[in-house]
Structure formats: C-alpha cells, structure tokens
C-alpha cells in the first residue's frame, strides 16, 4: 500500500503549462473528499460544493506559484476549512465546528468492497462501530484512512498535536477491533 501523494509532476503541469487535464485530475481526486470534509463544518452539501468550487478557482488563479507551496494537499484542506467557516458565519449559524452532527458516510464505500476479503456480517459490525465513534475521533479516522492525510497534516489542520492524532486513531482502531469477534480458525500474521 503506498501513501497517496500529490505527484510533483501533476502540480508542475498545472503551474508551468496551464494543463487543464492535470487540473481536472486534481479536481477529480480532491472534490469528493473536500466536499465531505467541508460538510462537517457547514452541514449543508450545497454550501460545501460552492466552497470547494471556490477553492479550486483560487488554485487556478494562483497556479503559477503552486510549486512554492510546501504541501499542496494540506493547503487544500486548510483553504476548504477556512472558506467553510466563512460560509457558516455568513449564514449566521452560531454553531461551533459541529462535529456532533458528523455522519461519516462510509456505507457507500463498502458496497464496492471486495467481499471476499470481508464478510458482510463483519462489515456491518465495523460500520456500526464507526458510526458510534466520538465525533472528533471519527473525523480523524476518516481523514487518515480515506483521505490519506499524514499525522502532521491532520495535526496542522485541526490544531492538535501529532500525539493526540495518534491517540485518537488508536482509540478508533481499538473500538473497531472490539467489534470484531475472534474466530481462531487458522493463524494470521500482519
């Protein structure tokens, strides 16, 4: 398993050649993730779609200086976070970061999963366990597992220490692990 990383080549294509195909690739990869991330803040899909569209507009505007950004992935998430918070303010909602209403929709993902790896019974158990995770824990789990952010990126994005990120992820895994019954039919190795 390789960590997803924004290839420098992709960024170069956009920054140096105004390559719209590369820009589209970037969009396709990040749009679903950023919209989902944004909706944790706005709790409103339509607002989030607008926010992410704005983020990408900005990316195109500043494309010539993209190579100077140390971590473009983190930049995208932070920009999304900020614009989402602005959108919320504009709509005069006085909610704080509404993690309570976070619904990590991981159900649709597992419909595509290779069912030979996991039985649907186990899947349901894990899914339920995820839904029951405390909000911040659930968010961190999602950012690392699905979006492939690093500890450092999550820490920077949510203003936490990497130790806290590790703790939260461990808690999440432990809770998921507890939901899976042990059936020692044969020995397994990691």
């Amino acid at each position, binding site marked *: 398993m390789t960590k997803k990383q924004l290839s420098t080549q992709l960024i170069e294509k956009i920054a140096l050649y105004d390559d719209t195909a590369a820009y589209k*690739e970037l969009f396709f990869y990040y749009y679903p993730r950023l919209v989902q991330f944004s909706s944790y803040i706005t709790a409103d899909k339509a607002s989030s779609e607008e926010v992410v569209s704005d983020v990408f507009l900005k990316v195109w505007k500043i494309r010539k200086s993209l*190579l100077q950004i140390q971590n473009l992935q983190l930049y995208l998430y932070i920009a999304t976070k900020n614009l989402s918070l602005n959108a919320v303010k504009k709509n005069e909602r006085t909610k704080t970061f509404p993690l309570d209403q976070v619904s990590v929709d991981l159900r*649709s993902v597992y419909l595509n999963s290779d069912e030979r790896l*996991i039985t649907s019974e186990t899947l349901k158990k894990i899914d339920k366990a995820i839904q029951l995770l405390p909000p911040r824990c659930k968010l961190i789990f999602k950012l690392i597992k699905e979006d492939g952010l690093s500890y450092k990126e999550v820490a920077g994005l949510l203003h936490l220490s990497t130790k806290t990120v590790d703790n939260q992820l461990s808690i999440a*895994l432990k809770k998921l*692990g507890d939901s899976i019954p042990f059936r020692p039919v044969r020995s397994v190795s*990691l």
Partner: protein
Amino acid sequence: MELYENKLWSLLAKKLAEEATEEELLELEKMSIAHPEIVYAAKKIEDLWSQQPPSGSDVEEQFQRLISRLKEKRLLPADESSAEWKHQQKNKKRHGRWLVLASAGATLALPIAYFLIKKIEPQDKQMRIHKQVNEVYSQPGSKTKLTLPDSSVVWLNADSRLEYGSEFGKNTRNVQLIGEAFFQVQPSTIPFIVKTGTVHIKVLGTAFNVRSYPGEKSTETSLIHGKVEITMDRRPDEKYILKPNEKLVINNDTASAPMSKNHQTLIVLSTLTRSKGSLIVETSWVENKLVFENESFQNLARRMSRWYNVEIEFADDGIKQLYFTGIFHKETIYQALEALQYSASFQFKTENEKIILYKN
C-alpha cells in the same frame, strides 16, 4: 484498557497511517505474537483500510460548472477544449490511484479518446504558442527540485531562478540560470546549454553544479560526472572543457570584458574541494548540508544569509577575513553562529530582524 494493549493499538495505528518507524514495526510484530485476537481484528481492519470513497458521476458535472466559472472570469480562454483526451492517452501506462479516479469519471469517453487524438492535437499545439517562457524560482531559505520536459532533473538552491522556453526539448535544450543549481542532465543528441549572466555551459549527459549569483564576484561550475564545455559570451573562442571532479571559477568581470593582454588571470581551473568523509563542498547543499572549507567569514556569512533567509551584516571589516571550516546540517542560525564562535573571536547580535557581526 491496559497500557500494554494501548501501546499495541497505537503501534498499529502508526503502521496503518504509514507513520511507523522501523523499530516501531518490529515492536508491533513482537507484541502481536502475544495477542492473536488483536492481530485477527487488526488484519480485518487492515483489509478494509485501502477502500476509496466513490467519485460519483456528478463530479464531472461539477467540474464542467467550474470550467464555466473560470471562462466567465476570463481565467480560461473561451474556446479552451479540455485536453483530457490527450492526457488520458498519455497516462494509460501509469498505474496509480490518480488514473483510476480520473477514468472512473469518464469511462464512457475512453474508447473514443484514442481516435480523436489526431484531430485535437494540432489545435492544442496552437493554443500553447502564446506561452513563451517557463520560470521556476526558489526563495531565500528554500530549495526546489524540478524535472524538465526531457526528464533532466534540476535542484535549485535558495534564491535562484531557472527559465526555459516552451520549445525546450524539441531542437534545443536551453535554460537560463540566476543563482545556483545542480543539474542531472539526460543524455541526448541535443546539447543541453545553461546560460548564466555571462557564461555558457554546454553539456551532454552529466551531473554538474553551477553557481552564479548576482553580486558575487565569480561564476563557478563544478563537474561530477560526464563532460562539459564552457565558453564566455565575449570570448567565444576560448573553450574550457571540464573533466569529472574539476571546477572552473570565472571572475565575472573577466567573462564580460573583451580579450586584453594586461588582464590578470582570473580564471581558475581546479579540482573540487573534498572535505572529510568525501563530502563534496560545492554540491553538498543538494543533501541539505552547508559545507565550508577554509572559507572567509565574508563569503560564509553571505551563504548563511541565503541558507537561513536572514540578513547578516558586518559592523567591523576586520572579522571578514576570519576563516572557517565545518558543516551545518540541522542547526538554527543561532546555533550555527555559536558554533563558529568556538573557533574564532567575534560577537553577534540581532537588531531589527538582522544579524550584526562585530569584533569582540
């Protein structure tokens, strides 16, 4: 939850997030043997770890909307046809999640892509003509790595700029450099030419370093592998050929002045400086090390200024001629200056975000 179990989950978390060190992975293995039930659960979780969120068919729609917005704001030419066909064709051989996701959104289009390519291409070339120059620069205090269209790799040191035209790689491979860069040039029949202010460096498949900062007295070219030929603008008949491990230092005044018999020899051909442990001084910056060998404080201070992105000034001229030898790797500027104080007598202070060096 027991402390031991906590640790196990923590290590597993690090492993899945790809944040675990070698030692941590080993520790995890050892601990797993004692807890097969956790291992079982962990394996299941690991299996589902690599799932992707679905793209959804409306991503394409959203992208088209974005393109319309960009066109409205004149950030894209109105007749811009997305070069996606050409792009998908080029990337057919790449195996990455990127490609999978991009295709997922346009699988229907793929078969048609191949046939359309020939038609779209000439149009595409035309659109690119208005782009004349590509420019990459790295700011003081940072380094940038860049891959050129011919797959040559360039590392730009702090405060440097590289320019090349859009025809790079077709019949010519010309780049313009201000500052310092390390080149790893792809072999090709097309000569690779680096032009600094006053000096041309022609290469055929090599690795070499060029240092030409405005405000410095000389231009330095250091060769690691291969062969380079160096000429000066005003003296095109004088060619210098460097062999590996040699360096050429040209005084910038000499390079820009016409031939004159009374001129002092201000061109020095010498071997590269190797410090202990065979770290080559001239190119150690590529490995993020600031190496100096019997270097005057005046020169060193200038290099440190660029390296740390801090202005450094001398209050006393006398200390400019102190000489230092050493390596800086991860020190802060203050730690570096303190280290220098061990071997020579001077003081420094900070004033208005500048560092002032003065005698004791």
